[in-house]
């Protein structure tokens, strides 16, 4: 038994639920001889992967769905051995090169070379294979530079589909070599239709009000919305309008941490907050999420000038965190800095009263 997210994932371009016009365009493109390199980008849970899989199916038929998992081995210049997990069918290979860390260049180049050097034997199929690279925005500069030459060189036997959350960090040279497909997050009503149709197929009744709340909590992330709905089903089966929606634990935890910082500013609280950060980090919550969550709560009752200041330090420390090695220092620094600024602000406004 699979999760609803997988069970109700559309498998062909014709079955997609939203961005219909785009689906039509994609279909158009697939049917033509010159299939270009693609760069698919959009926020998480918008359906990038679904669209890519549909394109693959459209290109190669159902054979593209017979997947096998393989460990590929690469050797770096310093004779270090790398193992990367790839998922492939006869016609395509999917890999997440950022798994290899700083050695991603080797992975990208070797993989493309290996794939491009062999040809299909069966005549009926397209004459190229597809390599699907996910998280391209995490690739190092080096790998991206290597990519641009290989993309051109092997175009006759191999096409790339790149998948990223944002194109900000993708080199302009690569962007200009691909056809860019932007996948916006589905709107509230689109998500609602999907939730309703899923419930219908499962034979459940979904109260409108409850659906609205699920959508609100999901933040226009379709995957999260469906997962939440399924989680709710496990808790209480015939849905009721005022049913409790379980938020992800970490969100609640981050929010509480932020509230602690707002309610009292002292070294003692800082110590506690620090422990909570450790908790979050050991549970592998991405630091970006922690930063966002904290900031959102922290600036709720500040005036504009103070907001500006706090957003400023948040962006500064977040940047340092990316550059630095250990996120905990920067989270802590942000917390301390925030407390100092906030306390000063409260004190100065109290002085005004007296």
């Amino acid at each position, binding site marked *: 038994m699979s999760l609803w997210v997988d069970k109700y994932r559309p498998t062909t371009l014709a079955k997609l639920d939203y961005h219909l016009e785009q689906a039509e*365009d994609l279909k158009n493109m697939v049917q033509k001889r*010159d299939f*270009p390199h693609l760069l698919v980008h959009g926020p998480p849970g918008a359906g990038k992967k679904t669209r890519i899989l549909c394109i693959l199916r459209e290109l190669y038929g159902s054979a593209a769905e017979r997947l096998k998992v393989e460990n590929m081995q690469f050797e770096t210049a310093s004779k270090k051995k790398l193992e990367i997990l790839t998922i492939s069918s006869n016609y395509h290979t999917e890999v997440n090169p950022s798994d290899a860390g700083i050695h991603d260049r080797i992975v990208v180049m070797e993989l493309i070379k290996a794939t491009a050097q062999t040809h299909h034997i069966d005549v009926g199929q397209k*004459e190229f294979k597809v390599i699907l690279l996910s998280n391209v925005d995490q690739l190092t500069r080096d790998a991206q530079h290597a990519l641009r030459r290989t993309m051109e060189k092997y175009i006759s036997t191999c096409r790339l589909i790149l998948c990223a959350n*944002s194109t900000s*960090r993708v080199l302009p040279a690569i*962007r200009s070599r691909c056809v860019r497909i932007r996948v916006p997050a589905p709107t509230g009503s689109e998500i609602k239709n999907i939730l309703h149709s899923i419930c219908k197929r499962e034979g459940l009744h979904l109260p409108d009000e409850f659906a609205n709340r699920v959508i609100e909590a999901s933040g226009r992330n379709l995957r999260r919305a469906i997962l939440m709905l399924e989680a709710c089903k496990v808790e209480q089966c015939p849905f009721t309008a005022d049913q409790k929606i379980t938020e992800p634990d970490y969100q609640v935890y981050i929010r509480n941490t932020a509230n602690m910082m707002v309610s009292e500013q002292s070294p003692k609280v800082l110590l506690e907050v620090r422990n909570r950060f450790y908790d979050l980090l050991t549970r592998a919550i991405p630091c970006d999420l922690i*930063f966002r969550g904290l900031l959102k709560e922290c600036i709720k009752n500040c005036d504009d000038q103070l907001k*500006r200041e706090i957003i400023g330090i948040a962006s500064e420390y977040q940047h340092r965190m990316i550059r630095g090695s250990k996120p905990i220092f920067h989270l802590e620094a942000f917390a301390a800095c925030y407390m100092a600024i906030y306390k000063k602000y409260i004190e100065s406004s109290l002085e005004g009263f007296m």
Partner: protein
Amino acid sequence: MHAFLKTGKLGAPTDVKKPSTSRAKDDKKDLTPWVEKYRPKNVDDIVEQTEVVNVIRQAMKHGDFPNMLFYGPPGTGKTSIIHAAARQMFGSMYKDRILELNASDDRGIQVVREKIKSFALRKANPIGPDGKKCPPFKIIILDEADSMTGAAQTALRRIMEKEAHSTRFCLVCNYLSRIIKPIASRCTKFRFKPLSDEKSISRLEYICNEENLKADRSVLEKIVEASGGDLRQAVMCLQSITRLKGKNYEITVDDALDVIGLIPDEKINALWEACKKGNYSNVETLLENLLLEGYPGSQVIEQLNEKVIFSDELSDKQKVIIGDMLGECDYKLTEGSDEYLQLLSIFSTILIAWKSS
């Protein structure tokens, strides 16, 4: 056999696979990007850059060339002009007489010492195989020369002088400042300016004609405007649209915007107005929605920059504050920071800047 040796290693793989000749040929024609397909074949085809073209034409008449350094923004025809000139001069000998290296080839000091040197040492015959006269030199094109390391450039100095009797160098780069002085002083420098909108549009119209595309002039104008004088990008964009929409389709402005990745003006304006009114929570929700639509942060910064610079309402001081922030955030974004945080910090700065006026 001879032909095989001539084409060298890179040409070989294309020879190996030959499914069915006639179809393969059609494929090739279909598959070449328009950027290559419509690259000018002849020096006279080149639009704009009249001074450079004149100098080159003169040089071709005398059958001699100086060492040259082309610099200017991307997509202005630097590489095209040297290829076209070489093709005209050498004719069938074209492939033999040219060594082209660009940034994606390895171009460390080792390559300069071995590959470039050995090519430079080869003697060029003044008479071609067909008995006609042919200029007695070879051309080495170093594309994207500004990405060569300093050491590699230094190694080039002496080679350039020593082999002057049989080899001409043509360096192509975006930024003159990244070429070391001694190299720059050994070359005749040509600056390429961005193409005027008029010329770019007429080129695009020509391509549309050749490819049977229907596009309104206003659409082409928008494409050219968005590409900022970069003809290559404009052509790429045109081709991307055709790939998505098919040939018999009237291209609209919205399609063009979507393919180029521009954010519609009204979205930026809405954010701008919200900042002006000083409504923070409004800014926050608008920004969240903008990112959910999948627009990249770097693009937001680019378009904001345009808006700030040409705004009449802001004082110079406000522009400085905002501009400073834009620069900093752009840097942080390329380093991989979180888009939401960085953009939020930009917009909150703008908000404060408005208040302080």
